[in-house]
């Protein structure tokens, strides 16, 4: 399951790389803003599912942290795009991320209790790892606006922190 979702996400970035590279070799700022914003929204949605399903205090606290942090980053992102007069632009990477996240939620919906907790936290570790990879290798190097780049760098630190936090929670569930 773990391997499958990682492979699916890897496919996401491979698939999306093709149309983007035809356009300009790298995503544009409006596309980058859209991808980063979408990545945050999807993690909030995953957290809301966990808040409905989990009874484990560590998992519930973790999910609340995800909602709080990603909503805070995304509010900054919205303020920034408004200031820069950039309209976030939907793109194949955002679409693929959204589709993969919907599939993951559908899969997690079938789990209950401790099995759900484990699957959700494992999925969070994998998801944050994937987004970190995309931020480091594609989104940050491609961003041309300095303020957008700086916000993405803060976003990377937040995502890296969440990955470690998720790994810590995973360790406690064993």
């Amino acid at each position, binding site marked *: 399951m773990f391997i499958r979702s990682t492979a699916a996400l890897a496919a996401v970035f491979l698939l999306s790389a093709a149309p983007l590279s035809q356009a300009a070799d790298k995503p544009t700022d409006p596309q980058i803003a859209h991808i980063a914003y979408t990545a945050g929204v999807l993690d909030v949605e995953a957290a809301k599912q966990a808040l409905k399903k989990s009874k484990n205090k560590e998992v519930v606290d973790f999910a609340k*942290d995800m909602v709080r942090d990603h909503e805070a980053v995304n509010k900054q992102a919205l303020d920034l795009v408004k200031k820069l007069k950039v309209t976030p632009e939907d793109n194949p990477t955002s679409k693929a991320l959204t589709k993969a996240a919907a599939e993951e939620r559908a899969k997690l919906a079938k789990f209950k209790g401790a099995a759900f907790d484990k699957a959700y936290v494992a999925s969070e570790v994998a998801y944050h790892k994937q987004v970190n990879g995309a931020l480091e290798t594609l989104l940050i190097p491609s961003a041309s606006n300095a303020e957008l780049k700086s916000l993405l760098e803060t976003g990377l630190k937040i995502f890296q*922190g969440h990955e*470690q936090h998720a790994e810590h929670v995973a360790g406690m569930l064993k």
Partner: protein
Amino acid sequence: MVSRRHLWVALALTMGAAPAKAETIEVTIDKLVFSPAKIEAKVGDTIKWVNKDVFAHTATVDGGWEVMIPPKKAASLTVKKAVSVDYFCRFHPNMKGHLTVTSP
């Protein structure tokens, strides 16, 4: 003459009082970084974390104390004993700091 003598007395009092006076040591949190990352304090001093981020952070010692630092706010801790500890943010464990407290 008289005023000069008074000045010396005042200075002597200030200098005498100085070592006992507790200080406040400020640590700024900006973009998920504690700075300075390493701080030194004396027993009785106060550590004040000033959070410039829109995110909540903590200063947590594993198996020890924890200070919650809300977004855009500050939180303080008065150190009561000599210790040398690593601390981190529980929400973002990639944020790390070190605190050394010595006896006055």
